[in-house]
């Protein structure tokens, strides 16, 4: 080889090494601390936790319980006097994000991971779909018309269209049906350890899915009476739904540090772990007091300067004599109730009392009514003797009551006091405008006009989605199911 060639070759070689190492130098754009593939349960666990924290925190629990007036703010003595209808844009935004990004989208990603696995994990997909159905049920009952069919598909639908609430609720039912058909109780492939509700017991998941369908149909039936038939079908087989407290869907919390209920953690951070902000509202307490409801000592703590229980109005200035929402409800390990036996029992009682899909039957209604009221008292660990006494002497007899359906609504309203998202739906569906149970009046400080009916859409959606409803609904606008 000639010297000149040597030089040329070595130059060419150097250049080649240079170019390839140059490429190597730049190929470092992979994050060493993230994963490109994960098991569905890891996303499922995150989605559940994010969802439940949001529900029990300052973006949902606090504003909704004040605006639906199931809890009182105590004015300046407590949480602070203000316009309880002035919902912070951060709360609407964070809530929306929980349903669509932190919660919903991670469930969607988990479903995709489960279904696209070499051996598809159908049960895991079903578990995720049932929870997703609940998220979307909450989204639509809080915001009204929402993106459903075009949601969670950024590439195909960068600006999702809004579906009518009716279609969303139908979609919730379809999601449940889809999940039920996917469930294979014999398959070992499922989310087990991360399934904090049922530890992988797929038969309980089926019951939950049917219960969600039932609840959804009960929300729809006033506006769309044809739903009565489907209600009847489910009622014909009550054991296909939640049929004991053991079937309850509860998100558990613990006494260990950082594992406490979010309601407690807010107090832990600001008020020494004790509730100094929220008070018994007459709208709930006044139903309980005359009958010496055994849940009173579980729901409320007497004021530091009081010997008796006393409730205040929503924005009334409280003092040391006003009863507080109890330390029991806000205890560290209070589970977050997502679906309960008492809830389904009272809905069943309502269906029989109103004759929805079944012949009206106040006797059967009474059985479910008693079952629901007792389940609620038991769930809140009320004094057993007092419960016994209440059930035998105070429980309303629906057959003799002037308005049996109202009596059921009262119990539903009381039972849901610590679950404001549900109590807000319950109040709106309990009767046409002006005839809801309870009859609420405009809270002090709220702008003149009708009572609040929904959360407004969040700014994040208004500014980034050209397909939002036009005109945008305002907080006093009723949604489809609300008569």
């Amino acid at each position, binding site marked *: 080889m000639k010297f000149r060639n040597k030089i040329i070759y070595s130059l060419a070689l150097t250049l080649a090494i240079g170019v390839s190492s140059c490429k190597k*130098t*730049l*190929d*470092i*754009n*992979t994050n060493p*601390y*993230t*994963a*490109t593939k*994960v098991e569905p349960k*890891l*996303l499922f666990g*995150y989605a*559940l*936790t*994010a969802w439940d*924290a*949001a529900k029990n*925190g*300052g*973006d949902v629990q606090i504003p909704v319980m004040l605006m639906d007036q199931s809890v009182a703010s105590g004015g300046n003595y407590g949480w602070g006097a*203000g316009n309880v209808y*002035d919902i*912070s*844009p*951060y709360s609407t935004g*964070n809530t929306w994000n929980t349903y*669509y*990004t932190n919660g919903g*989208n*991670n469930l*969607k990603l988990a479903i995709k991971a489960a279904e696209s696995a070499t051996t598809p994990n159908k049960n895991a997909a079903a578990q995720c779909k049932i929870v997703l159905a609940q998220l979307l049920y909450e989204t639509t009952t809080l915001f009204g018309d929402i*993106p459903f069919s*075009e949601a969670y598909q*950024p590439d195909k639908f*960068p*600006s*999702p269209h809004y579906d009518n609430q009716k279609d969303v609720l139908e979609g919730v039912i379809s999601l449940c049906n889809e999940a039920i058909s996917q469930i294979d109780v014999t398959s070992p492939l499922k989310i087990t350890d991360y399934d904090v509700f049922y530890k992988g017991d797929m038969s309980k998941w089926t019951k939950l899915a049917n219960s969600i369908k039932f609840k959804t149909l009960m929300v729809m039936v006033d506006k769309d009476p044809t739903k009565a038939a489907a209600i009847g079908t489910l009622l014909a087989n009550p054991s296909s739904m939640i049929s004991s407290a053991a079937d309850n869907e509860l998100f*558990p919390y613990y006494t*260990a*540090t*950082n*594992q406490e209920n*979010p309601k407690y953690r*807010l107090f832990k*951070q*600001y*008020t*020494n772990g004790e509730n100094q902000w929220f008070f018994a509202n007459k709208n709930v307490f006044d139903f309980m007091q005359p009958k010496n409801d055994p849940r009173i000592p579980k729901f409320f703590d007497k004021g530091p300067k009081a010997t008796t229980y006393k409730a205040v109005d929503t924005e009334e*200035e409280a003092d040391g004599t006003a009863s507080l929402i109890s330390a029991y409800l806000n205890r560290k390990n209070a589970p977050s109730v997502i679906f309960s036996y008492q809830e389904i029992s009272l809905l069943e009682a309502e269906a029989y009392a109103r004759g929805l899909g079944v012949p009206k039957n106040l006797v059967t209604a009474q059985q479910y009514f008693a079952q629901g009221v007792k389940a609620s008292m038991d769930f809140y660990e009320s004094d057993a003797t007092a419960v016994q006494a209440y059930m035998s002497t105070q429980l309303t007899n629906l057959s003799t009551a002037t308005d049996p359906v109202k009596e059921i609504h009262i119990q539903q309203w009381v039972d849901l006091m610590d679950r404001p998202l549900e109590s807000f739906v319950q109040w709106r569906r309990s009767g046409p405008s002006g005839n809801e149970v309870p009859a609420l009046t405009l809270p002090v*400080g709220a*702008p*003149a006009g009708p009572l609040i009916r929904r959360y407004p859409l*969040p700014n*994040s*959606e208004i*500014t*980034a*989605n050209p397909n939002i409803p036009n005109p945008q609904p305002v907080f006093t606008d009723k949604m489809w199911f609300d008569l």
Partner: protein
Amino acid sequence: MKQKLLSIFLVCLMLASVAIAQDKRITGKVTAKEDGLPLPGVSVKVTGTKLGTQTDANGNFAINVPTDAKNLEVSYVGFNPQTIAIGARSVVNVILETDSKQLSEVVVTAVGITRDQKSLGYGASVIKSDELTTARDANVLNAIAGKAAGVRINSQSGTLGGSTKIVIRGVNSLNGSNVLFIVDGTPLDNGNAAGGTISNNVDYGNRIGDLSSDDIESMTILKGAAATALYGSRAKDGAVIITTKKGKKNSPTSISVNSSVRFDNALVLPDFQNQYAQGNFGAYNLKYTNGWGPKIADVQNQKFTDFNGDQVTLQAYPNNVKDFFKTGSSYTNNIAFSGGDEKSDYRFSFSSVNENGIIPKSTLDRYNLSLNAGRKFNDKLSSRFSGTYSRIKADGRPAQSSNNSNVLSATIFGLPRVVDINKLKANYQDPVTGNQTFLSTDKTGNNPFWIINYNQNNNTVDRFYGTYTLEYKPYDFLTLTNNLGGDIYDEKRASFTRKGTAGFANGKFNNTDIFYRQINDDFLATFSKDNIVKDINLKLILGGNYNERQIQSSDVAATDLTIDQLYTYTNASSTTPSIGFSKQRLLGAYGNLSLSYKNYLFLDVTGRNDWSSTLPVDSRSYFYPSVSSSFVFSDLLSKTGKYKWLSFGKLRASYAQVGSDTGPYGLDFQYFPVSTVFLQYIGSLNAFPLGAITTAFRGPGTLPNANLVPQKQNSYEVGTELKFLNNRIGLDFNYYNTATKNQLISISVAPSTGYSLKSLNAGTISNEGIEVALNLVPVKVKNFSWDINVNYSKNKQKVTELIDGVKEYSLASGYSGLQIKAKVGESFGLYGTKFQRAPDGQFIINPNNGLRLVEANKFIGNLYPDWTMGINNSFSYKNFSLSGLVDFRQGGVFYSGTAAGLRTSGLAAETGGNRANFVDPGVIKDKSGNFTPNTKEVNFQQFWQQNYQTSNTEANIFDASYVKLREIRFSYTLPSSLFSAKTGIRSATIGVEGRNLWLIKSKVPHVDPELNFFGAGSTGEGVEFNSVPSTRSFGLNLRLSF
């Protein structure tokens, strides 16, 4: 000691000379022809010998010369050298003339290229060492405030060692502005404290604050893209080129000492009412830390329980807030040794800053050790090393903003007027149990003395940055240079919350460890040839760049401690660790061709190609060019002999395009491990492991995009530099226009897509503005001169384009509905809740309670000023000099969360006085939309509590304009005759100096309008939320050189 030896040696030398030859002593004075002023430091040599001396501070010299000596050579930088015959004289006075060729200054520009200022085709501001070393500020960036046109400097908080934000020529990007800092050729990180609404919001400073101003020779601020084109992407928001001081070749060791002692107090404290105690609707109640209780004068016949459980008669303590703060002190010292021989030079410097803040228990210590050493190995090869080690230790940085019971200013400003600060200080802790004595009965508010004594936020930084330059000059026309540099630091942050603290009864602590490393290498080949064609000089630079940046962080949050005040992980019942990491590389190749014609017409063309690791493989290579030109027309005119009133005139113009990349890891779809979930009023809530859910992952919140392309910025500028009447009047005018297109941003998408943001190329932001610098010398006589420097800048920012269908983009969020947004057709603005108004502007009142009605998400005002201006006046008389800098800002809005807090809690002065119900002037809107005057009375407390709450943005919005006396300096240089040679002292200057002295005019009550709670790293500004008050400082300075 060395000085003594040297003196003895010199004396010996002189004695020896006397013994050898007959000498004669010559004395004299060297002055400048132009103004007759003495010139210090002028070299005076005896021709043909090695004998020589320098003039002293008064221009005097004395030298012993051999009797046969003929001539003296007198030379000084910037003046024409002279050779003077001695003859029989023993007194030789010399008058030196300015060297017209040297009139323009040498400026260090991109990649360390030194250029004649006159040849620059773009605007650049140079801040000289003098500007930085007198009236020093611990953060060197603060010393630029008001001194350079087009450069906006804002100190973010009064936190000791707090951060300072710099914006050059407006914000160009939706991601904010990131100015590039270069020290001796090596880029330095200017990392900032995370800002915004996060809880535990502590200002940990910006990393450029680690520099010692005493080590800086000059700072060149390159503002436009043409100036920074060679740096490429990283300098799209401008660059600050810092050159450190060197030793002088051929000079004996000299020692300089610069010492200051300064005292600080709060510049602005809130105005309080002093008539009402704490309580609710006029009734005293210890549960509240506010001012809504009874009128103190009305209850003098009663006793009330105070926070300490004592029965007291209420009394106002008007100074309780003022007395919480103490006089801060700072000691800034620098000692530098420098010198050199023919081949080598060195400078070694040690700086220290020791500060005690106005907040008790807050301290800052900073030490810098710097070495700059150069060596010329032979005619062709030379090298230089410059490096600095710095250590910062700061304790007691206060928490600001909200959602944290440790927020200090909220606690202090929120003190009820009847609380005696001395009693509070003496009783913050129960002497028996050691438990905290809370301010309020519901134990929600921490005692401020508990916070400062036990709940501290501390940090330490160990940092090294340095550059090694090797220069090889094989031929006269060719220079090969390699600059290898690095910037490495480790920062440790710790925050402690003692058991028994409200909000964290069981205590907690956080440790954060941040490791940063940047390695940079530039290789340059410079060809330069004069008269390549007749009258044309050429310079061609070809270069390559390698840059790697890595940041790694780990954070451990530990909660619920077993043993009190034992901050170790095993003592905590829960620990949550997390890791952060990012690494990116950039390769660049660039060239710069400079041509000059007869030294009055200059043309520069540059091009750079970058390859970035953060962009998709197909689009990671990008090229961008620039061209700039300068025409010194006065050189042509002077040849005509006319226009003598024009001393200097230049026109300049430039055009540039700059491409830039994005952050790493934005391309792949990834799942992130998470330990927290969001909980309103707490923020990130440590949640995992949670029972059976031991590990949690989530998908990305930002939809990644594998098709990103580089961002492009186009800019042009034209300007002129004019000097009249023998340089007595100087004017520098500049117009620029910048458009940043295809921005690499994460834009908000409809969350119903499952994602909050999406990475993409979108949006155009333009900035257009003028910069004017005016220098006047109204008086210049023998012993007196008066200089005026004015700089004025006006920038108009406009968002010209976002993505299709998107009209606005949220840049930053504050609390309670306040947002900073970009909207098409507008500049960045502040948006939030406004009062509803009738068409005639009157408030619309709620007829039920007499309160004003509000509407959310409205435009409130512009974020940025219409214009800013700095005026510096300096006077010098003999050895005295005095200068003062006044800083103006006009326009923009400012939101004060502190004002909101003081008003809603009934503590602000405006909530005092008569608290009877009244009718708020306004109108009531009826159902048919008609307006009638309001007649509904409103309760006084409710009026303030409801209308001025933080969520009513407009209620606490103010005009952000201000006028500030930024700096005052007075100094006196002692006559050199005072110092005998024995002391070794060559010069001594004493001075009085003050910074941030006086807020001359402000429309913001209660706080300094410059504060910003978003922090220096955020696009957000103009919002303050319980910020630490900024300080005014005043002190003495002594400078000595040996």
